[in-house]
């Protein structure tokens, strides 16, 4: 996993609430057995005017000029600005895979759906929760100023605006450490092998039917 420390990047706004993972990456792309290559199909149904199928060359497809990802001013954006309950619906990890594959490193929103929030951390993508009023102000700033950038600093747990204004955000210590150091969760859990074995031994006597 790519470590995340500080990202200073262009911001792209997706101004709608309850964006679900079906919208982030539609089901036909879930047939892939790979972990990468989902970026061109991120928000496929909103981004293109035709129907997308796996294996197409997306550069040849007709694009929806109104969709933010197709606007020249947001090319190369690394920070996605979103509204409440972002990532709701299906547990598909293909959603953060697609967002990350499209070049984003952080998402800022007033709230995220639980499973999506969790999945982001496994993929070097930082979901940042900021107060709805602050997110509102950021939307206004992004819309007003082409080239608007933000700095997301995970060590300091702060989002910094071009004017030097700082907004703190919460993130739990375990997730923060894994992301900062790019650590593999499985390796960390396997440090507790003895505790897992001891738990299993106890449960085998308490609830033997669970082990049949």
């Amino acid at each position, binding site marked *: 996993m790519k470590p995340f420390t500080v990202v200073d990047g262009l911001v792209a706004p997706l101004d709608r609430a309850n964006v*679900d993972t*079906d919208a982030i990456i539609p089901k036909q792309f879930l047939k892939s057995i790979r972990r990468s290559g989902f970026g061109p199909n991120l928000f496929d*149904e909103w981004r293109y005017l035709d129907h997308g199928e796996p294996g197409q060359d997306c550069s040849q497809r007709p694009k929806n000029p109104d969709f933010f990802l197709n606007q020249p001013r947001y090319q190369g954006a690394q920070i996605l600005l979103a509204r409440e*309950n972002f990532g709701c619906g299906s547990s598909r*990890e293909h959603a953060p895979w697609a967002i990350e594959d499209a070049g984003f490193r952080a998402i800022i929103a007033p709230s995220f759906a639980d*499973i999506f929030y969790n999945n982001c951390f496994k993929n070097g993508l930082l979901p940042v929760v900021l107060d709805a009023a602050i997110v509102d102000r950021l939307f206004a700033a992004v819309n007003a100023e082409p080239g608007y950038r933000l700095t997301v600093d995970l060590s300091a747990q702060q989002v910094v605006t071009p004017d030097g204004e700082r907004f703190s955000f919460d993130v739990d210590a*375990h997730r923060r450490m894994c992301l900062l150091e790019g650590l593999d969760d*499985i390796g*960390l859990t396997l440090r507790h092998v003895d505790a897992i074995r001891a738990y299993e031994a106890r449960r085998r006597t308490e609830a033997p039917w*669970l082990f049949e």
Partner: protein
Amino acid sequence: MSGQTLYDKLWQAHLVHQETDGAALLYIDRHLVHEVTSPQAFEGLRLAGRKPWRTAAAIAVPDHNVPTEHRDQGIADPVSRLQVETLDRNCTDFGIREFGMHDVRQGIVHVIGPEQGLTLPGMTVVCGDSHTSTHGAFGALAFGIGTSEVEHVLATQCLVTRKSKSMRIRVEGHPGAGVTAKDIALAIIGQIGTAGGTGYAIEFAGEAIRSLSMEGRMTLCNMAIEAGARAGMVAVDQTTLDYVRGRPSAPSGDNWQQAVNWWQTLVSDTDAVFDSEVLIDASTIEPQITWGTSPEMVVPVGARVPDPTSLADPVRQADGRRALAYMGLEAGTPMTDLAVDRVFIGSCTNSRIEDLRAAAAVIRGRRKADNVRQVLVVPGSGLIKQQAESEGLDRIFREAGFEWRDPGCSMCLAMNADRLEPGERCASTSNRNFEGRQGQGGRTHLVSPAMAAAAAIAGHFVDVRHF
């Protein structure tokens, strides 16, 4: 000190290790695996040279991509076929039990777990699928995980997670005739919103919940995720025990009694304190129908399409307007004026025997309306299909002009060949009315099985209570 909630008890019983910052290592008893969210997890194990920790805890089944007709001819779409074959190969390579596409026990992963007794009270159950919340109906702690976590559970039999807050939703009193678990679920989501349960594990309680069958409780817990909660659960009672007894993987003999002794403690203590409480009067719930593109955009069947401009919040107003445009609706139209093009009866929400019986009861001796292009009835498993056929339900469906299919997810998410065409309106018993969910440009209205069946006959939505 106050008592423990059901969630507290389940959490405690599976805690392997607690970090000081709140992260916890939780032991997983049952791991359900399907073809869509597992290939990258198995690949991860291979790349790291890891083996599954305890293969007997896992059970795999292909469901999302499988065809629901002409199954003997295999899967036509090569990409879908490769995904199903990849699951077969991974299960063989890693020694994991699988109900393959041609096994009579094959079905939707959340239907077969309970049916086989692989889901039991007191278990932790995970699956790379958000509707894993379904299994909470058994007094189990069940929730969906992502693919990285699928790999984590395969490798360690544990999950790194943190405890959610607890919410109790009490539905007291009795719902009227024609009001089902699906209507209760939709009414709850309409009240608390699709993010209302975010960060919470929800326990459903109260008289109306106690009187639900296990099928009804599964429908309800299935939709906990649509209220934003990863887990929904119902306490163990006699209904639970009666359902579990005698299932192929349920404990038997001495183990049964020992298990029951523990399972009977899986209720919230009377003095338990919840972080949040919601009280709903069942008698006020009417048959529900969604009008928009989020399950919270729901109204009683007798209502009209709402006017989004009446909403105070500008973000919601914009969402409402977008939803009306997508759904091809005008504010103020009575919901029962909406004609349907297709009807889908199935999905992990409503494909169990009770659902099929409810649909059949409504249509017996009648035929689908001419304007309805297709009615799909897709049982949740091969065994449910057999059961329904032994009761003659398939005949009732066929005589009504409905199509009787093989088990799978089907048009719930349209990963196989069953899908809506752009602009088509569908009465669906599934759980998500998101844009494009049932096919690009498709318009989904979520309803109960009886409401869906009635719409198929009438050609438009109707109040099943006066049908």
